[in-house]
Structures are given as structure tokens and as C-alpha cells.
């Protein structure tokens, strides 16, 4: 495969193919009883790996485990747990 002369990506939208979930060491877990669906976590998620709703749904294929959602949740409905734990 011949590369372009610099790191130019000519085909847009490839971030969808690049699943970043494997980067995660801490995983956000939503307590569906506590979540009031305010959407703050959806707003602040940098990926975005959160779908709005009550409760919100996290897409673990892309979530890097940054923890912003858990930090910003006003009702403490999201907790970060170690990968591999339930």
C-alpha cells in the first residue's frame, strides 16, 4: 500500500472503524434505577460513546474509560469499576 506524502486520510469516517474500547482499564457502569436521563454524561462524553435515554446506554466498543460521565453525573448513577469486574 503506497502511503500519501503525509498523514492525510482521504476517506472520512474511519473513526467508526477504529474501536477504542480496548484502551479502557476502568469501566463506567450505569445504575438504571438512579439514572434520571438528564443527559449530562451524553453531553460531556468526549467520544461520544453514550446514547441518550433513561437510563443512558454506554457503547463499550468506543468508551475509553475516561470517567468524565461518572464524575459529572449529578445523581451518582455511574460508577467506575475495574475492567473484568462485574
Amino acid at each position: 500500500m503506497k502511503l500519501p506524502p503525509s498523514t492525510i486520510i482521504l476517506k472520512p469516517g474511519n473513526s467508526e472503524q477504529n474501536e477504542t474500547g480496548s484502551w479502557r482499564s476502568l469501566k463506567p457502569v450505569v445504575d438504571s434505577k438512579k439514572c434520571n436521563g438528564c443527559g449530562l454524561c451524553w453531553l460531556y462524553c468526549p467520544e461520544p460513546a453514550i446514547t441518550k435515554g433513561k437510563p443512558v446506554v454506554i457503547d463499550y466498543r468506543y468508551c475509553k474509560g475516561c470517567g468524565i460521565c461518572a464524575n459529572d453525573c449529578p445523581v451518582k448513577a455511574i460508577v467506575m469499576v475495574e475492567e473484568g469486574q462485574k
Partner: protein
Amino acid sequence: MKQLVTGDEAAAIAAKLARVKVISAYPITPQTIIVERLAEFVANGELDAEYIKVESEHSALSACLGSAAVGARTFTATSSQGLMLMSEILFVASGMRLPIVMANANRSLSAPLSIWCDQQDSVAVRDCGWIQLYCENNQEVLDSTIQAFRIAEESLLPVMVCFDGYILSHTAEPVEIPEQAEVDKFLPTYKYPYLLDPEKPITMGAVGVPEYYEEFRYMLQEAVLKSKEKIIEVGQAFGRQFGRKSDLIECYRSDDADVILLTMGSLSGSIKEMIDEYRGHGERVGLVKVRAFRPFPAKELVDSLGHAKAVAVLEKDFSPGSTGALFSDLSGAFVNSRESPLLLNFICGLGGRDVSSLQIREATKAAMEAAKTGEVKKTVRWLGLRETMVGLKP
């Protein structure tokens, strides 16, 4: 038509004749006149360009990245501390293969604070992946700046046109200014092949992970090496159209010389005068002037210096703890040659100190002595150094 212009004005006129579309720059001595003139051209409606005012040189060059990426012919100018502040973005421009042209009025670096000329600023960033052209006089400033756009656009590399601060930047000389129509013919509108266009989104300047980084760096190396041919080709095309051709190096009465002086920039003019004097006395002394410092014309220098007995490299820069940069590159060029002339290095003209005919004679004399004895007594010498002040003499 000939006009009396300073080096700074020559650079500004060249950028105007090239019909630059975007100028983004921050004023700094001794380059300021360039951006002042360009600002006037835009304000007067003589030049149809965006003039982007910024808060620093870092931002100036960053803005240039964007404008070059959308395919606009882009120009900036700086000096010294400004170039240092740009240094991060210099590497980005070449790595992204954006054909930006910059004028650099060579000025020494702080500390001690100095606004005067030497070439330490551009020499310090010789590894940034830009083509670097050095000018002997104001005509060359104009000619090289016009050529720089074509070299940049056809090589997809940024080009820095360097000329000595004050000695050229603030000194008026008669300069042949070409007609606009002629420059238009020489510099047709160009199309950047990887245009940043909202209609057709692409990603530019993406991360280079370890699996790819080395390949991109290799391609940059190949591109800069290959730009040698482009510099020659464009220099010849310019010569055919305007009657003044340029090359990677210029040889002045050096073909049969036993002793050759090597330098870059305005010092070449002073040395040419001295060469004529030596020749008048039957001494076989010549000059080779380096115009393109990057790409380094290693083969061309070996070919044109190889026959000499001794070569004296005079340069307005040095690498603390090593030698002058031109000298170390030249030494490297001869590394696998069967025969090499004796090489001597003379550091001179730092921080705006004039390089006198006496100093040029001193360097020539040392090189002649080496040629005669086959021995170099001292490889690196500082010309004009006041030895009592630095404790070398009581």
C-alpha cells in the same frame, strides 16, 4: 525595470509579484519592513490577499498551515527569536508537506540579546525539513523568493529564503524588478493535490503511530533530497525567462584554485572582491558559494572542491561543543571520498560584527599555509576574536 530597494522590500515585492493569497506574519527586526510593505500593498488594493494579524510567530505559521492546506499561495516572514518561536510549527509544515514560503532576515539569537546579523537562527533549524536558500544580494532575494514558490509547490515542501539582516535587509541596492505578466507566466496558479475542502472532507496531520511514522519521515527525507533537482530545474527556467539563473551552489574562479573559500549569504560578495585581488597577484584562490543549504549539495560540493588542496569554510554560526554547521556538513560530504582537501573552519561575523577584508585574508592565509605544508594547525578558528577579553591572552 531597475529600482533601488532594500532586501526586505525585495522580498515583499517578490511576494506581491507571486500574487500570494495569504500573508500571516508578526513583525520582528530586521524583517519588519517586509510585512509592513505587504500590509501596505493589501491596504492599497495593490495585492488581493488576506493579511492575517496574529499575536505571535507561533500563530503566524500556524495560520499559514491552514491557508496552504486550502490551496492558497502562502507567505510569511520572520527573523531570529521569531523563527525560534515558530520552530515547533516549522516541523509540522514540512511533515504535512505544505508549500509555504518564508523570508528569514538572518539575525543572531539571544543571549546576549542582539538584533544584528548572523545566520545562527536559520542554521539552528536546519533539521526542520524546509528547503533553505541563502542570498548574496538583494537581486537574489527577489529572484529566490519568486523561485521559492515554484520549488515549494512542485516539491510539496516549505521553503525558507534566508538573507543577512541589515547587510541586505536594510541596505538599498539596484534590483531588476520583473513585469507582473512575466512572473505570472513563471508562476501559474497551482492546485494543492490534497485540498482541505468541506465538500470533500479529509483528515490532515493525523497521528503517525509507530507502524507508520518511520515511513513518513523517510518520504520527507526523499522529498528534500529530490528537491535538489527541482531547485536546479526552477533556477534554469528562471534564467531562461529572466536572464539570471540560479543553482544549488555558485563557483567563482574556483575551477583551477588550490585554495577555495566556502561560505553562504552576503559574505560571498565581499569574498569575491578579495578573490579578484588574489587573482590579480597570480594566486590560485577561488570561492564556492552555497545557495541551497538544505537540501545539502554534498555531491556538488565534493565535485567542485575535490581538486583543491585546502578549503576554508567561513560561516556566521556555530554549534557549541562542535564546529560550524556548514563545516560539519562539508566534512560529512567528504567522508567516503578517496581524496579530500584539507578543511579549515572560520567562525566569523557573529552578532553583526563586520567581516573585514583583513579577516578574509587571515582565513585565506591559513588555508594557503595548510595547502603548502599539507597540515592544518588549528581546525576551527574564530576571526576577529579579541583574545584578551576572553582570557586567551593576558
